[in-house]
């Protein structure tokens, strides 16, 4: 970044509006809030900017008050920075964080290259997958069937899916440069209500689960939704690329604790969305399609499972809802298990998160472009919820969530930036729009 002459620092600082009449009065909190939320008219915005250009105090207020949805490395700053002060750091070049510095860019370029190679190989699996004997798929189906409605961690760990990565070595080896070697690629489609539990974190650093609604050649493993008999109907065909059919409304991916691992599993809705790095841009997301099922009642719930849980330092059993503190920093939902001493990223979605609400172990968080997630276990697992009614889907920014404590399923009220109010009286299964 270019430096300016020191005289500019001096003159910028000298222009502070101290005691210079009512026209210099500080904007009130309402105006500053509206400014930070880009909700002011052009005239008002110019007026506020005029003041902010001169008033370091108000700039500090705005900087502290802004939700900071896109600010990079805020979680890291939270770990290192003790107390933020209002002391100006002028006079000496400030320690700026350059996101586009070459050391970062070269990794981005490398990751992009790897992603391209990986996508080509995935789209045209060709010979890579043929090497897998058909019996392997049967083995997966048998194990999965035996495990009941839950795809337990150990079967996956020991299943040929894990070992099938040898067939994809060309991909895995390259991807391994950008992410942990223990990563497991697991394209699947899951039945409704299923909870997919990845293996122990010691063995599985990151799991990217693809739900691919594939062609007739795809392997189909169907699992019963809950206590009913689970029938995994395996067909041989693609070898390493197993596909489990899902008619699920929500698929949760349960994560065992790890301080260093992250897990991402997504079911993709018809609209393909870009994968976003969970931490430091090294995470490669995979996209998958999920069949949506009509929810009971008139409303229809489309569900998409996007989960990115990283750095969950404590075991789930130790996570008590009353000890958990939540905050949103840089558009990422963070939680603290020790009254704010340490923060972990609990959820990073494709779009910045803006608000959250929690009640006991129920946590809801919403963000831009109708992003809405629900966790029923204090943020261990997340399921994306897409509220919709017959003709309309919630696509505007979610600015507020209210979880009302009523007997039975929680009542959820979601407010949006365009003043819509969506509510669900059955814990998010069906929705009404006011």
């Amino acid at each position, binding site marked *: 970044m270019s430096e300016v002459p020191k005289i500019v620092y001096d*003159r910028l600082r000298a222009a502070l509006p101290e005691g210079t009449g009512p026209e210099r009065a500080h904007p009130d*909190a309402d105006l500053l809030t509206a400014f930070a939320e880009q909700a002011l008219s052009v005239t008002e915005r110019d007026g506020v900017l005029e003041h902010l*250009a001169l008033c370091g105090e108000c*700039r500090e207020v705005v900087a502290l008050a802004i*939700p*900071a949805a896109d600010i990079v490395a805020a979680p890291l700053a939270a770990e290192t920075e003790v107390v933020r002060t209002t002391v100006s750091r*002028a006079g000496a070049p400030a320690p700026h*964080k350059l996101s586009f510095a070459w050391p970062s860019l070269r990794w981005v370029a490398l990751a992009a290259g790897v992603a391209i190679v990986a996508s080509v190989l995935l789209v045209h699996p060709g010979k890579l997958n043929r090497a897998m004997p058909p019996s392997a798929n049967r083995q997966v189906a048998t194990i999965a069937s035996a495990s009941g409605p839950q795809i337990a961690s150990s079967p996956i760990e020991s299943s040929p899916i894990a070992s099938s990565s040898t067939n994809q070595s060309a991909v895995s080896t390259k991807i391994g440069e950008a992410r942990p070697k223990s990563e497991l690629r697991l394209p699947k489609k899951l039945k409704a209500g299923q909870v997919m539990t990845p293996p122990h974190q010691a063995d599985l650093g990151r799991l990217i689960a693809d739900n691919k609604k594939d062609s007739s050649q795809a392997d189909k493993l169907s699992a019963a939704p809950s206590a009913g008999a689970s029938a995994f109907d395996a067909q041989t065909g693609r070898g390493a690329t197993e596909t489990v059919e899902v008619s699920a409304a929500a698929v949760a991916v349960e994560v065992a604790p790890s301080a260093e691992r992250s897990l991402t599993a997504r079911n993709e809705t018809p609209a393909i969305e870009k994968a976003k790095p969970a931490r430091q841009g090294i995470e490669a997301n995979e996209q998958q399609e999920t069949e949506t099922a009509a929810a009971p009642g008139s409303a229809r719930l489309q569900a998409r499972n996007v989960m990115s849980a990283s750095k969950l330092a404590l075991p789930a059993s130790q996570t008590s809802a009353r000890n958990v503190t939540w905050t949103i920093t840089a558009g990422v939902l963070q939680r603290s298990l020790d009254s704010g001493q340490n923060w972990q990223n609990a959820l990073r979605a494709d779009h910045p998160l803006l608000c959250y609400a929690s009640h006991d172990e129920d946590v809801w968080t919403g963000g831009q472009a109708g992003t809405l997630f629900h966790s029923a276990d204090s943020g261990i697992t997340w399921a994306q919820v897409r509220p919709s009614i017959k003709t309309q889907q919630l696509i505007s920014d979610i600015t*507020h969530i209210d979880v009302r404590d009523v007997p039975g399923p929680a009542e959820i009220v979601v407010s949006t930036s365009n003043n819509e109010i969506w509510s669900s009286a059955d814990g998010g299964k069906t929705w009404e729009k006011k």
Partner: protein
Amino acid sequence: MPISAQSGHGADVAAALYIRSGAAAYDVSAEQFAAILDEILRKYFDSAPNSAHASVEQKADFCAGLRLEELALARACAGGNERAWQDFISRYRQKLHGMALHITRDGAHAAELADSLFADLYGVNARDGVRRSKLVFYTGRGSLEGWLRTVMAQEFINRYRKQKRMVSLEEQTEVGMQFAAAVPGSACAFSDRTSDQRLEAATDEALAELSAEDRFTLASYYLDGRTLAEIARTLGLHESSVSRRLDRLAAGLRKRILAGLRMQGMSHAQAAEALETDVRDLRLNLRSSLMQDSGAKTFPEGKVPAQDAGKGSN
């Protein structure tokens, strides 16, 4: 004309806004809510320079753009409605603590800050025997959550400023601060004053030509040390846009200042020299050289941090 006093279409609008706000759930009547809207309209339109030209439709649009539900909740809380407070607590109590942690980065201070703000919101302090809740100042221009965050940030900065003013006399005595001679100021730079003034004038002129947004960007980056991402988020831009803008501003400022200096009779070489060899640097270097020569710093200028107070100066 206030919304509450309108008939026909205006009354319909007011009724629609009232229904949308859900204020009835908090026992706020339609008349009370209309009065709240009128008060907000007065605040924003009466102070505006062209308020006289604001039509009823413009006012209705303005009201429709407010966060009506949150406004109703805030005003109902300010009015002491019990259900409103229950809703407020369930929605924001924990968030307040999270916000405070985000701002203070310290658990103890966060709890103190959040509790203090909560007390202000509840209206613990009574004025003329009337409990005055801070929520009465919320007008619904932005989200209630954002407003709470802003108010909390203001409170945090006010506290910091107060603490900054408090100086420990004991610490000052220990380091000999009260005996320190006055800083000579700019007397040493007397000979450079003329060129200094010309440089200042040229810089002021160059800065004045910039837009408010550009000056805000410059001040945020160079004075406050904000990151590109923070500035981008504040202005609703992309980081790379801010980066390019800063580069452009830095280059443009240099050119304008040089041009300004030349307009004041300096040659190009003199202007470039004046800009590069800033007297502030000379002054600073002189000070640092003197400090190095003198060795131990007997009378430090600043306040000694508390943890070093017992060690004395070295």
